[in-house]
């Protein structure tokens, strides 16, 4: 993994506060786990029916009945619980999920999220993503700042089918930390080695740049 991605994941891990119930989406978000202090009181939820996810297991030690929603073989912790899918989403919709970290194809300047369908190319279905995006108390996105073709993923308006409207609170990329505010996207932090101008130039949506020194991560 590139140094920029590692920095993004380390920075995102600091978003998790003690006592939170957290759902980490498939892909980059899952890797945030490794950055958490081992003694931190946090409860990881997965939508396939577990609260209190423990470390990922190698194949020879894996329990065939115990996976996370991404299919990784995980383990229980003292204090973990298993439940059915209706209970799992009651937890999400009912307001018990403090934070979710999700991936994105596009995030708009008003916090719309598209991450489940590229018409004609890729239609896997949204799984539990719609409810996570719409109902977690805080929704943060982990994504590369640009796609493989160098196009900004933080856009004025999503061109892809939406997962949820105005749901994103904060975006962590390999270039910046951006908050979605009622006034628009605000540049909060810039990755070490980049300038504010680099980030603004790489971003399709118009960024609000606060006065004064922008912190580095």
């Amino acid at each position, binding site marked *: 993994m590139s140094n920029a991605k590692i920095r993004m994941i380390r920075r995102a891990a600091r978003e998790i506060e003690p006592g939170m119930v957290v759902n980490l989406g498939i892909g980059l978000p899952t890797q945030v786990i490794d950055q958490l202090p081992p003694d931190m009181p946090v409860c990881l939820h*997965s*939508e*396939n*029916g*577990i609260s209190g996810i423990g470390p990922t297991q190698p*194949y020879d030690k*894996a*329990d*065939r*009945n*115990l*996976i*996370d*929603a991404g*299919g990784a*073989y995980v383990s*229980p912790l003292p204090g973990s619980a*298993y*439940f*059915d*899918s*209706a209970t*799992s*989403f*009651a937890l*999400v*919709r009912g307001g018990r999920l403090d934070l979710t970290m999700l991936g994105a194809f596009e995030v708009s300047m008003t916090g719309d999220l598209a991450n489940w369908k590229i018409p*004609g190319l890729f*239609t*896997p*279905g*949204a*799984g*539990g993503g*719609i*409810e996570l995006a*719409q*109902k977690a108390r805080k929704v943060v996105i982990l994504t590369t700042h640009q796609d493989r073709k160098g196009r900004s993923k933080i856009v004025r308006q999503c061109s892809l*089918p*939406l*997962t*949820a*409207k105005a749901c994103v609170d904060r975006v962590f990329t390999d270039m910046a930390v951006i908050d979605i505010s009622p006034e628009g996207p605000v540049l909060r932090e810039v990755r070490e080695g980049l300038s504010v101008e680099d980030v603004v130039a790489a971003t399709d949506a118009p960024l609000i740049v606060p006065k004064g020194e922008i912190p580095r991560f």
Partner: protein
Amino acid sequence: MRFQDKTTTIEAAIAEIPNGASVMLGGFGVPGTPFCLIDELVWQGQTGLTIIKNDANETGMGVDHLLKNGQVARLITTHIGLNARAIEMMNAGDLKVEFCAQGILAERIRTAGAGLHGFLTDIAIDTELAEGKHRVELDGRISMVETALKADFALLHAEGADPFGNLVYAATARNFNPLMAMAATQVIAETETLLPIGAIDPNHVHTPGPFVDKVVTLNELTKEYAVVQR
């Protein structure tokens, strides 16, 4: 007082399913998927099925055998990203796929199982999944009507069962199984272990026996139940 013995053979249980039936399948990925019941359904070859399952498994496993064999007319699901055949068949128009938000699929099934007709929600209200859904204003909020989802059959996988059909699931193999157990006219459960009546502590029963119609004991597990090394 005695309890009814619902144990039967896998052949007899699956033979009840006619062509054109709607069939719920438990499971989220591998855990909780009734692979042996699915294999028997493939062997018997019923066609025109509506399959209701969280996902389409992976290529070469479970639901994929039904798809490959041309037995599925319609799939109601939340995610098919791990099955390239399902996506291909959908894109080619050979398979009708109806996507649901995952918790909404679970709740539609639970609702049917609870004998209710539907519920109101704002989940997916700003997405293309909302198209064609009836909207209602209640207490100043706009909601959509989600209908209860019933099926003719539910095929479940349990870790343990007694002959009356009290079921216990293992870890994340629970997922949709206890919900589907309530929502089908005929509920068929395969079990890894058949326990004598009374062996399951009533406090630890996940699905109570009255929901279950048939219990099939698996003599051995096929390789599809094993840890998948990707």
